[in-house]
């Protein structure tokens, strides 16, 4: 990164210095287009966040695209059921890179209050990678905006070149994740081991 004092010195003389990464990320983070995709109750708070009082438009994320081909942010707002999970993964696969996922609400993070359910997927991070998780049931619209800002900070810190470059800058990395199938009793597979890394169980009674 450039020396800050040098930067401000040059700025005072009317010369603006930046790096390609900064400009590229600045453009991307301030124009995230979410996919118009609400599952359950959190979708109503997402709509409220996009409505007049909380106004997501100031962050550039006003344009909700109905088609996944035109969206670059997927806000999983609501419970993902096992019946819906293959469709969510397929939608995620259809989004072009760079793409991001915000898991909004307790249900999308881990199944939430419906964790005991036989049809509830215990968190969408079993099949697709999640960038930001916003807890709450439902999270307030301000919480969704904070999650969006955190995602913007994450995007601002992404690199285009070098060994730590972002996923989409890596030509070899596949952006598609396997879609689960409906089995006789559960989804097959129950989770994607490349994506899902849970904490090891601390259960003492076996």
């Amino acid at each position, binding site marked *: 990164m450039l020396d800050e004092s040098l930067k401000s010195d040059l700025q005072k003389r009317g010369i603006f210095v930046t790096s390609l990464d900064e400009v590229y990320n600045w453009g991307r983070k301030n124009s995230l287009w979410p996919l118009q995709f609400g599952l359950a109750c959190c979708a109503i708070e997402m709509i409220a966040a996009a409505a007049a009082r909380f106004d997501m438009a100031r962050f550039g994320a006003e344009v909700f695209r109905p088609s996944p081909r035109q969206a670059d942010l997927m806000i999983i707002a609501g419970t993902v059921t*096992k*019946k819906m999970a293959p469709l969510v993964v397929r939608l995620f696969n259809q989004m072009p890179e760079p793409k991001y996922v915000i898991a909004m609400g307790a249900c999308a993070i*881990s199944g939430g209050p419906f*964790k*005991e*359910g*036989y*049809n509830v997927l*215990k968190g969408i991070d079993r099949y697709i990678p999640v960038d930001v998780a916003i807890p709450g049931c439902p999270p307030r619209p301000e919480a969704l905006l904070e999650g969006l800002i955190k995602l913007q900070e994450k995007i601002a810190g992404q690199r285009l070149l070098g060994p730590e470059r972002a996923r989409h800058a890596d030509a070899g990395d596949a952006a598609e994740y396997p879609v689960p199938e*409906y*089995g*006789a*009793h*559960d989804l097959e597979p*129950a*989770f994607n081991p490349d994506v*899902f890394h*849970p*904490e090891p*169980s601390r*259960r003492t009674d076996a």
Partner: protein
Amino acid sequence: MNDLAEAIRQAIPGAEVERIENPGPSGQHSLLLGLPTARAVAEFLRDNQGWDFCSNVSGVDWPARKVKETVVRKELVDGVEKEIQEPVEREVPGYLEAVYHLYSIPKKSGPLVVRMRTANRTEAVSVPSLTPVWKSAEFQEREAFDLFGIRFDGHPDLRRILMWDEFEDFPMRKDYVAPDDCEYEPTPHDAVLALVKARQEVA
């Protein structure tokens, strides 16, 4: 309700109608319909008695259970006839039940509760469908089939509605075991309490 049962028996010869008492304070007693004449009874209720709105169809699962009863019998004890109460345990076989709540829009009355029971929970799980009588029962009977396994004979389109088609279990039954796919078990409440108490005793 006894008048209604009488009217049904008079209108449809051979109709099996039984009044089931509801022990709780709600006072909503129900009529148990025999399966062969259930459709005819339903049509009589709709056309003749004005119960034109089928509001709710629920499935209920009653697994086999043991019921303790006291049987009173007379016995000769020392030459004197006495009544002896003997506790007896008998097994009530399990069955599945479809419960219908009917309302009358013109008379603004209800609910009239009507039930149908299957013979058992394993292979004799059919009841006649009341969808031809009240169309509002269509999706709800499909749901009872999906979640309980009750087959409704005469339903126009009996297939799963809430679960996916390849699913094989009946999840709302009492003996259904959900797949064990939780990755994190929350601490049982008592274990947390025990830890807190232990810490308080030491302090």
